[in-house]
């Protein structure tokens, strides 16, 4: 049996009443590239955060080279030879590449003066060894995302790390940059460095990984050699059932008169004359790449961003939407892209997050009627099937899917007729996704209209009645979603 450089055994971790990890094992051999796979919410990130000490495990042990180890923070982990390259990069934008590469351990000579020369030499030497060119003097804020990642990797390696954890390193890279990154990963492997590689892109796993571990709903599913498996098999392991049931079956729902008309919508430096109509009972999907202007449409229609010009009609009446208060009064609701930062206040209770859109409904004058508020919040929680120990629990004690349901609930509570959902299923697990889809259907059946923005084309295809495609602030096309429509067609428009 080969030696395990890292062995996490029986790791269990609960957040509130939600078990994020249940008796999970991860065994990584020295010098391999080990993929950690699983849907969002499967527990990959939590497992890694236990490794680097951000969270403490409730149960279980971590062995490094067979020695039980507990890191209390990321600094200790790095000192112990494990480095992390996270999605959200930990770089200081206002400092140079060199300063970032040596962050926290700047070298100085005997007089205590910083020794730029030897650091530059070390940095250049290292970059040469991985065959990558980089100017140590450039500010990190000027670098591309791939280059920023290289700075992080350089920092990790110059610390003499034996294990590098990469969390979705390719999520924001172009295919050329990915190619470069893979070359570097291979060089690292030849140097005997162990890599734990987290990614959603299965092709990548087959390209560079040796072995893999699949997690699902916080449990170990399997650990396999990459060479012995296939992509369909992996998908099945990840989602726990065959993919046919990823979406609920489409049901016919009547589509009525126009409820929202947007004419000639311009925003400063972004949207270029958008026109579209939303009908009662319709699901209108908006596809396009990140940064193509999808979210900007949502925010402009909701009055969250300033518009340059543009006219809105709601239920056939010309209206002015200059603020989120206007939009709310017109019975429009927005579920924003970033659930934690913009959709809710995660430090407040489920109830407070739901009733915020319409406190008048549960007040007499300005005084809140607590009993009524509790009743209303309970009703919404029940209606949407939010799994929470009580309505008084803080939102951050709920899973992502349930948090998202609460954000939806606050608009249903205000009885919004037009719901704009920006990436409604981002970062939530398959089961919860399915429930969100059911809720969207339920809403349109009740005569509400939905605009759904999504980066996941299958989702757009499965749910939308019509599909709009955005590219660089322009509306490329708007088509009926019929049997013959192919994802390639939509991608064609999305790429300009």
């Amino acid at each position, binding site marked *: 049996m080969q030696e395990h450089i890292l062995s996490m055994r029986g790791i269990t971790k609960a957040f509130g009443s939600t078990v994020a990890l249940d008796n999970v094992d991860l065994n990584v051999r020295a010098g391999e590239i080990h993929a950690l796979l699983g849907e969002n919410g499967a527990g990959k990130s939590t497992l890694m955060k236990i490794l680097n000490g951000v969270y403490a495990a409730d149960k279980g042990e971590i062995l490094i080279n067979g020695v039980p180890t507990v890191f209390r923070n990321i600094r200790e982990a790095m000192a112990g030879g494990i480095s992390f390259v996270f999605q959200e990069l930990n770089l200081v934008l206002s400092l140079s590449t060199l300063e970032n590469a040596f962050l926290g351990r700047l070298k100085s000579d005997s007089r205590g003066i910083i020794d730029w020369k030897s650091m530059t030499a070390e940095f250049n030497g290292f970059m040469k060894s991985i065959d990558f060119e980089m100017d140590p003097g450039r500010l990190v804020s000027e670098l591309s995302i791939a280059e920023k990642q290289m700075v992080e990797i350089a920092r990790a390696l110059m610390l003499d790390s034996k294990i590098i954890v990469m969390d979705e390193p390719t999520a924001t890279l172009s295919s050329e940059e990915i190619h470069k990154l893979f070359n570097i990963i291979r060089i690292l492997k030849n140097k005997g460095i162990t890599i734990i590689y987290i990614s959603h892109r299965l092709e990548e796993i087959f390209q560079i990984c040796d072995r893999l571990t699949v997690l699902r709903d916080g449990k170990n599913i399997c650990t396999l050699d990459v060479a012995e498996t296939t992509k369909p098999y992996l998908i099945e392991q990840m989602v726990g059932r065959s993919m046919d049931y990823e979406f609920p079956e489409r049901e016919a729902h009547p589509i009525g008169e126009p409820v929202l008309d947007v004419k000639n919508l311009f925003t400063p430096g972004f949207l270029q004359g958008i026109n579209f109509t939303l009908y009662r009972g319709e699901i209108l999907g908006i596809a396009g790449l990140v940064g193509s202007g999808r979210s900007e449409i949502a925010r402009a229609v909701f009055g969250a961003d300033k518009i340059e010009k543009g006219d809105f009609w709601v239920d056939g009446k010309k209206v002015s939407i200059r603020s989120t208060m206007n939009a709310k009064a017109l019975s429009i609701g927005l579920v924003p892209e970033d659930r934690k930062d913009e959709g809710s206040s995660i430090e407040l209770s489920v109830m407070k997050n739901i009733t915020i859109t319409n406190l008048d409904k549960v007040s007499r004058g300005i005084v809140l009627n607590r009993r009524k508020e509790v009743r209303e919040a309970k009703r919404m929680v029940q209606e949407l099937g939010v799994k929470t120990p009580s309505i008084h629990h803080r939102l951050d004690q709920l899973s992502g899917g349930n948090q998202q349901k609460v954000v939806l609930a*606050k608009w249903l509570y205000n009885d919004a007729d037009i719901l704009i959902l920006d990436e409604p299923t981002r970062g939530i697990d398959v089961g*919860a996704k399915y429930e969100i889809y059911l809720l969207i259907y339920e809403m349109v059946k009740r005569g509400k209209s939905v605009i759904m923005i999504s980066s996941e084309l299958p989702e757009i295809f499965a749910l939308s009645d019509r599909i709009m495609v955005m590219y660089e602030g322009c509306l490329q096309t708007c088509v009926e979603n019929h049997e013959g429509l192919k994802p390639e067609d939509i991608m064609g428009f999305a790429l300009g």
Partner: protein
Amino acid sequence: MEVAARPKDSIKNRIVDILSNNAILFLMLLLVSVVAILYPRFLTLANFNNILNQISVIGCLACGMTFVLLIGCIDLSVGSMMSLIGIMAVTVANGGREWLAIILPILAAGAIGLIKGGIIAGVNGRLGESFITTYGAQSVLAALALIIQGGLFMMVTATGIFTRIGKGANPAYVFFALIVICQFILTKTSFGRKLLFVGSNPKAARLSGVNIKFYFLMAFMMCGLISGIAGVLLPSRVMSANPTAGTNYELEAIAACVVGGVSMKGGSGSFVNTLIGVIVIGVLSNSMNLLGLSSYPQMIVKGFVIALAFALDVVNKRRQMQRG
């Protein structure tokens, strides 16, 4: 997502929880016991009245500050505003219009609060912006007070209602009434709920259709009004006003709030926290007075207590996060 029963907290964990969540109260109890044993005089009615008198004005100020902290801002100008308001009140009172001397300065303080709030709402500011804005306001108001009064003491020569509001236990009644009213506003009204929500996450509040600028304005106006009340109480109690009477009071008020558990990040805390903080600091000062500590060592002790309260809060939050 599966929901399973969470492993029960161990008894040790629970005890640590109770101790650390109420550390400040326990520390105070300890202090009270020690001082009470050494100085039986500490536990007399007269001494309690004494403590109440000492904390009431600062307490009012802390009460106003709580609104601003809850919305995630800070107001460094309330001390100098108090000085200015005091001079204004005494001037009007000595002129014989004593009711006006109570009401006018309070309204003026509210108006000054509105201006500060307007600037901060205008730039979508939070802690940093409000720090700078109100630091500037502090400088302006302090200078105004000195210019108007020429740096001199000003005796209260009025004899009517103005001199009575600051007498005896009246400031304490005002303080407790303010705590009760403000706590009611915060927890039982839609206004209070929205204010808390804006403080907790202004972006999410805005995207829930809440007029966040209004709540920034209102938080500063409430703070202004209540500082105005403190500004009227003080000269009435000490029967004089001077242009530096309120110097550093803002820091004492902030310290009381934070010691009591109001978060500087906004959206967390209540007026009960403020009440606790004000009492803790009041009892601490009183105990040190009884122990015969002079005022400079007292400042050192107070400083450490404030830092300790803050550190405990941070440690607690981190521990809770790690355990999930």
